[in-house]
């Protein structure tokens, strides 16, 4: 599986993502600078975590309008898999590739800890190696993860099984609607989540339960 990670000024999880992708896919991913206008031919594009542009205006708002994003949108329409983690999820929402927005955590605190995630839909390209309803451990690190959208959109997301991950066992760290931690687009190729599966792939770091997400993508694009 060929993959690319887009690097924005202020990204800080791109190395973790590059390292996780290389370890699990066995292929070195490409790092693409945000000022580029065309992506290489890849199976997966990742928007990494961090604080792109210092979170100016709104989190992910400036990055979502960076030069490379026009091609990210074209690739999304063409069916390429796109994943946004944390700040990347915020960018996908700001870019209109996913509905809703990530607001300030309801307790106004930056949260950096492990949570429990339930895989609500294990039939996506990003989750096929999880068991349906499986609860797994994953770290979060964000100040703006409080997923919000209007009632109609929320009903549609739930009705169409597009909530992929939910905070489980009372670990919702930010007050997100319906405990939403990750959602997918209607075509099933663009997914965003607040937690950091790329930081849960080695026992040294506390666990390997995040590997299933990358293994799912391997399975899906193979």
């Amino acid at each position, binding site marked *: 599986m060929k993959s690319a990670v887009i690097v924005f000024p202020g990204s800080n999880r791109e190395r973790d993502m590059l390292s996780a992708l290389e370890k699990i896919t066995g292929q070195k991913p490409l790092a693409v600078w945000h000022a580029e206008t065309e992506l290489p031919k890849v199976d997966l594009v990742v928007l990494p975590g961090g604080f792109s542009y*210092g979170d*100016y*205006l709104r989190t992910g*708002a*400036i990055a979502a309008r*960076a030069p490379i994003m026009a091609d990210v949108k074209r690739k999304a329409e063409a069916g390429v898999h796109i994943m946004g983690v944390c700040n990347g999820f915020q960018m996908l929402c700001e870019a209109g590739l996913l509905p809703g927005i990530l607001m300030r955590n309801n307790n106004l605190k930056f949260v950096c800890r492990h949570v429990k995630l339930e895989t609500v839909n294990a039939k996506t390209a990003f989750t096929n190696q999880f068991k349906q309803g499986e609860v797994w451990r994953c770290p979060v690190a964000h100040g703006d993860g409080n997923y919000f959208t209007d009632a109609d959109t929320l009903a549609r997301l739930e009705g169409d099984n597009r909530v992929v991950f939910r905070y489980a066992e009372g670990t919702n760290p930010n007050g997100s609607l319906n405990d939403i931690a990750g959602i997918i687009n209607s075509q099933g190729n663009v997914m965003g989540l607040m937690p950091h599966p790329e930081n849960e792939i080695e026992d040294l770091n506390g666990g390997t339960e995040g590997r299933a997400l990358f293994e799912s993508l391997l399975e899906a694009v193979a």
Partner: protein
Amino acid sequence: MLKNGVLDPQGKAIEGALGTLGFPNVASVRQGKFFEVELDEKDAAIARATIDDISKKLLANTVIENYTIEIDEK
């Protein structure tokens, strides 16, 4: 609002994004903050003085920021 001459990195970042989006006639952008404060006060002069005090003590840092006050009656 930041005073003239004080660097506004957020405004500059927004200005850059507007250039990317294709608004060639945007000359510059500066970002400020907007607060709505409800007062339980009928006297407009006292209301203005109170908000001025609030602005100086908390909302604005007058080293780098200017502020303006508008009073609306409800």
